[in-house]
């Protein structure tokens, strides 16, 4: 069931994409983990049942409407109106058929319900093996990602990019302190809301390495549309390497342009919201920038992380993400170039 289902899904995705050649890694039917896989399986079970139900209803409707009436089914004049003659025997027969239809409906629904409870049970069962704990905090309009560690200074804070090892379950602790957000990476698992005042958790596993796109699914304000994230599933070794690199404090710039950029960063409003470990910048309103250069995207998945994009993002974030909480920063082109160079080398 699963394999053809997946190829159909890929075909549909390809159809939808049309000319664009991008592999859609944000697709609930292109499952890359057991969670999304079971749910996609449920869909491929329910879809044929639903289709059959619909076809039967429409067929009866069309046949019932268009069938040739026998001469015995005549209209008579009753109280001045042309009305079909009563036919109690036929109505009794129809009652039996309708009752049969209702029983069939009940049985079908029951079957679907059982299948669905089985999937539900499998998904809520906590992982038996040791899972990677990750803390996610939703913000208007970006994701804070923390990898806690028993030794506090080994904890990692990053943003909008979640790295996970393939084949190991991940348990996310979900919180929000502003409004409700909802984390959703369709290729991996269903969504879960981040509710202010509550701590929720979500666990899943990725089985194939890849980049999976997700985005906020609960309307959270002006830039709900551009609150995106990447989940990067990699081999255990790659993941460990990444994590240990993220534990380092920020690189001290070597070339003069980037050095000037650091001065610019520490001397402007940047430091009021952002943190870069190993510098004086320690604010937590915006994403942590310690390793911003290592991320694939900026502005919560809106732009690829390139010099030019970073330049235009810092100069005028409101043009790219109107309503984002980051204000425009007015700097001379030279300072701006230096700042971009500094941030880009924070690998």
């Amino acid at each position, binding site marked *: 069931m699963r394999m053809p289902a997946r190829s159909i*899904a890929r075909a549909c*995705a390809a159809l*939808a*994409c*049309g000319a*664009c050649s991008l592999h*859609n890694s*944000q*697709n*609930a039917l292109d499952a890359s983990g057991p969670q*999304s896989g079971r*749910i996609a399986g*449920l*869909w491929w079970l329910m879809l044929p049942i*639903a289709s059959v*139900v*619909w076809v039967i*209803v*429409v067929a009866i*409707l069309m046949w*019932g*409407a268009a*069938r040739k009436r026998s001469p015995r089914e005549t209209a008579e004049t009753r109280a001045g*109106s042309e*009305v*079909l003659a009563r036919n109690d025997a036929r*109505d009794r027969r*129809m009652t039996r*058929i*309708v009752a049969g*239809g*209702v029983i069939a409906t009940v049985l079908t*629904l029951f079957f*679907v319900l059982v299948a*669905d*409870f089985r*999937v*539900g049970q499998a998904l809520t069962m906590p992982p038996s093996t040791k899972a990677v704990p990750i803390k996610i905090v939703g913000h208007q309009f970006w994701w804070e990602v923390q990898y806690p560690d028993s030794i506090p200074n080994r904890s990692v804070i990053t943003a909008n990019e979640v790295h996970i090892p393939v084949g190991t379950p991940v348990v996310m602790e979900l919180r929000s302190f*502003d*409004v409700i957000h*909802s984390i*959703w990476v*369709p290729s991996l*698992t*269903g*969504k*879960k*809301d981040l*509710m*202010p*005042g*509550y701590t929720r958790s979500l666990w899943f596993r990725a089985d194939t390495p890849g980049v999976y796109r*997700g985005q906020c699914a*609960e*309307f*959270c*304000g002006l830039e*709900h*549309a551009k609150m995106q994230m990447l989940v990067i599933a990699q081999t255990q070794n790659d993941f460990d390497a990444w994590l240990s690199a993220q534990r380092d404090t920020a690189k001290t710039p070597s070339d003069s342009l980037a050095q000037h950029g650091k001065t610019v960063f520490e001397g402007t409003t940047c430091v009021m919201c952002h943190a870069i470990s190993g510098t004086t910048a320690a604010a937590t309103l915006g994403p942590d920038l310690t390793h911003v250069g290592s991320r694939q995207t900026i502005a919560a998945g809106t732009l690829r992380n390139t010099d030019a994009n970073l330049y235009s993002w810092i100069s005028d974030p409101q043009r790219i993400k109107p*309503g984002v909480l980051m204000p425009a920063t007015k700097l001379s082109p030279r300072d701006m170039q230096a700042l971009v160079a500094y941030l880009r080398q924070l690998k």
Partner: protein
Amino acid sequence: MTAPPVAVGDSVPVDDRAEREQMTRVWERKPGLWGWLTTTNHKEIGKRYITTAFIFFLLGGIEAAMMRAQLSRPENSFLGPDKYNQIFTMHGSTMMFLFAVPIMESLGLYFVPLMVGTRNVAFPRLNAFGYWLFLIGGSFLYVQFFLNTGPDVGWFAYVPLSGPAFSPGKRADTWAQTITFTEIVAIVGAIELIVTIFKQRAVGMSLNRIPIFVWAMLVTAFMIMFAMPAVATASMYLALDRLVGTHFFNPSEGGDVLLWQHMFWFFGHPEVYIIFLPATGLVSTMLPAFTRRPVFGYPAMVLALVSVAFMAFGLWVHHMFATGIPQLAASFFTATSTMIAIPSGVQIFCWLATIWSGRPRFATPLLFIMGFIVLFVIGGVTGVMIASVPFDLQVHDTFFIVAHFHYVLMGGAVFPLFGAFYYWFPKVTGRMLSERLGKWNFWLFFIGMNLTFFPMHWLGFYGMPRRVYTYLASTGWGPLNLLASIGALVIASSVIIFLVNVLVSVRDGAIAGDNPWDADTLEWATSSPPPPYNFLHLPVVQGRSALWDEGDEHQVAVGTSTERREVLLTTTLDAQPDSRESHPHDSIWPFAMALAIGVLFITAIFTALALPIGGALALVAFAGWAWPSSEDVKTESDEKISLEGA
């Protein structure tokens, strides 16, 4: 009191002109603007109500078209996030609160008195008040919108986004107050319908004989009485949190953000059925005329209506699966959400049986009914799917859901509604709508609807969340969105054809006559449009299909006054004649009362002074409304009092 012109056993004289003139004098409204403002006739109010609600449908449709324009290609700049958020909020709020519920209720307020064979709704002044309040509330929302103070927090207004901390300004207050307006209007309408149906039915129309549309309105009215207070209370909490600093939804002071969702969906899910059940009633009541047989399975249909209404209150949590509801609770709500498909299935089977065993006449209303069945079943089966917690966790808050509920609400409610427009337009205006344009209307609507909403199922799987003002090209959502936007154009052209049809036919349509469809319910027993008093002589009902079961003669009851407005009250269960109650005169006070309440609600979002000022105004209006006028004294002094059963 004048003696009735005829006695029991008589045939009614052919020349009843004098009697008609007398009845018209008693029941018609005063001429001119004053009469227009003071009328309490359910047909005039109903017509305005339907028209106003339909204008809101057009406005909501324009908003939908703007959203589709914005989403037709990736990173489009037609609407920015600020405008887009206002527009999708306006679209949802308009369609749910200003179109769907009011138009179903207003159809009820227009047709229920005709269908049960009485002269007006139970509380005519309350009815007028309800309409004016609806007009004021709806206009308030749109005035605010045009002043760039339109709500932008979604029609569901989740806290804390809609709360004081994250929605400064007056936008969310506008939403909360609009809700207060429309909930009061809905409850007022529900009470009128319930009392009209319980107490004012024609002699002989026992509960097992009332038309299914009337049953549907009765059941819906009860649902409104229990569901609407939930959202009214919740929006009151929200307004208090925002305006006077209460902490209902503030987690740091013991409040709870989930409380809002529970209360909103305790209303919100029944709301779907408040819209859908009247639509099924429309279908069941129209079908006999186009299949030439009474609808199959009347008792099953009625029981299905009642059981849907009960079950509808037990499944609200399926809107909240993603919030992290405990598994046992979630399973319960999954089961109830799945099981509600059973009574809905019963209704569909009965319609299929009716069509199969009938002799279909493919006029436009029947096309809309058939289209309704085809579309609604799609929405129904996806509804069963999303009752499943794991499946819902994938598609919740995505375009899959948008597709699902548009199949349910557009396929399931708007299609029957358009059928009903074609069916009852001749009764309201005396002229037929064009069948040729009607068929264009139907087919374009049907095609456009599928073009727009079918691809959205797939967009949901591909990860497109709801309420996004744009999306990146790299998502690959562009082509399907373009297709949906083209579909929206097709729907728009279909609605334009309908408007043309109405505008042309209202002047030049074929003359309808009393009963153009040769239908079986009582509204067709009077002229088109009906006179101000509805029926010269009140009908006496012989069977479920009133006009088909009555034999060669139309039986009537006489003896209600021709000198004053009087309705016949019958017993609640078996509709035996019980009393004659006088109905109030036309009055300006309902309008004044609506203005007073309007001032109260609208100014309340700016100043606490609203309470004493609005309260005082309302008190004046209340006194004017209730204090007997000299006219009342003239007509109501000579009464026959019965103390029995008190």
